[in-house]
């Protein structure tokens, strides 16, 4: 996809990642436990230790990897949606909405992909896994439940569910983002995701804004949901590159 002129490069300080993603994950879990203990009652000295731990254990690249894969899932879903029977059952304006969402989710993925490369984070999947082809001629990476693309109703329901989970995960991750320079780009994406969701709910005949405050769910819980449904792995190392 050509570079979107609206997507400007994000400049962040360079970060040196650990060599092994798997050992980094264990390290991070241990650090999180230590950090959790320290956070219960912190003296200024302990606060300094916590800040240092955060920098050493690089919590933000984990968040970045998670968001990266989440946007990749959306990009993939809406790209497939536009080639589905469900899409053909939408009216012209609804198709325009799906087209816009597909373009913008692809742009979100591009933003986060650029950011990961800029930080020199290690990709969590292998090229071999990603290049396994589907009948659509694209890397087979995520799986989808049977029938989600078959008709308008199923398509809308799945699109709304996916968007809600993505948004709740972004908001649930606010506390996890240590690098304020990452907070802005994530929030800039999350806002547009909320616009997408309101419009999708509107065309589905649902209350577009059922609550006065945006929901938040821990990314861990969202990751489990997305994992069960789509093979989402939360930015971690891939085992099989997707099913079917």
């Amino acid at each position, binding site marked *: 996809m050509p570079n979107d002129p609206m997507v400007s490069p994000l400049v962040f300080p360079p970060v040196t990642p650990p060599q092994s993603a798997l050992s980094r994950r264990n390290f991070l879990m241990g650090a999180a436990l230590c950090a959790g203990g320290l956070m219960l009652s912190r003296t200024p000295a302990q606060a300094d230790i916590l800040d240092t731990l955060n920098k050493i254990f690089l919590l933000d690249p984990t968040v970045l990897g998670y968001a990266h894969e989440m946007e990749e899932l959306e990009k993939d879903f809406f790209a497939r949606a536009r080639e589905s029977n469900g899409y053909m059952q939408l009216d012209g304006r609804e198709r325009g909405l799906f087209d816009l969402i597909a373009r913008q989710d692809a742009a979100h993925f591009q933003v986060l992909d650029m950011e990961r490369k800029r930080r020199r984070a290690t990709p969590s999947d292998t090229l071999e896994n990603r290049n396994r082809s589907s009948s659509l001629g694209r890397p087979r990476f995520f799986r989808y439940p049977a029938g989600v693309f078959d008709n308008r109703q199923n398509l809308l329901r799945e699109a709304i569910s996916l968007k809600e989970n993505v948004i709740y995960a972004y908001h649930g991750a*606010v506390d996890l983002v240590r690098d304020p320079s990452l*907070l802005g780009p994530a*929030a*800039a994406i999350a*806002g547009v995701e909320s*616009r997408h969701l309101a419009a999708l709910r509107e065309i589905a005949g649902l209350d*577009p*804004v059922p609550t*006065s*405050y945006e929901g938040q769910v821990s990314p861990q819980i969202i990751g489990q949901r997305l994992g069960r449904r789509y093979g989402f792995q939360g930015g971690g190392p891939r085992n099989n590159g997707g099913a079917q």
Partner: protein
Amino acid sequence: MKIRLAQNTPAMDNATPGTMNGTMPNAMSGGMTTESRMNMMGLGPMIASPNLNAPVEQFGATQASMMRASGGPIPGLREAKPTTSAQGITNDIAILNSALVLEHLEAEFYARVVAADQARSFLQGRQRNAAVTLARDEAAHVLNVSEMIVKLGGAPIEKPPFQFPANVFLSPIAFLQLAVELEENGVGAYLGAAPMVANKDVLNFAASIYGIEARHTGLIRFLLGDQIAPRPLEQPRTIEEAVANAAPFIVKDIVMPAGTG
């Protein structure tokens, strides 16, 4: 922080729809008068409601209704306590009070639109639903932003008197166009302020409002027939810019409470 906005013009208190009494110099708009700005925006003359408080009363909310409206506990609000530095708290209170000005503006706008629609039914089904929903949400935001400021030890800014062009209470398109402008301003303001918020609970709370303001914007743009998101990324605005954008709708000078920066 003193925000000097439009001058108070006594004649406006008795303004009749369709007339414009005097100009409203806006110090933050490069000397452009409010009237000329309204003309540039294609909006008509301004009117001020003769009963500024009445339209909002119907959306005054209890904590119980806020819980229902939020779908559960409001992020960050219950937990909020001033564990950040004194300067950080002062900073956060100032940010929240700026947000409160914008929330007051939106709440008043939608409340008046709903009241006008109840009187003359100028909106259609989905437009009416949207106006009622947004009125509910913005009233909730006013209540809870005020509550957050109090929790931090600050004083919420009082609601200023507002004025809006007459046609937004007569034309669905005019209503939606102004709603887009207000919501885009709010979204940009919250996004622009986020990196400056010191307290994590305040940040969570503000983020939960920001998400809903973004939904509002997408909905209203959709109802207008516009592209719901002109860009793939939201655009931040400075607090000063966002408050300046609200200035044409505020009748009087407002002074931020002492200790808010």
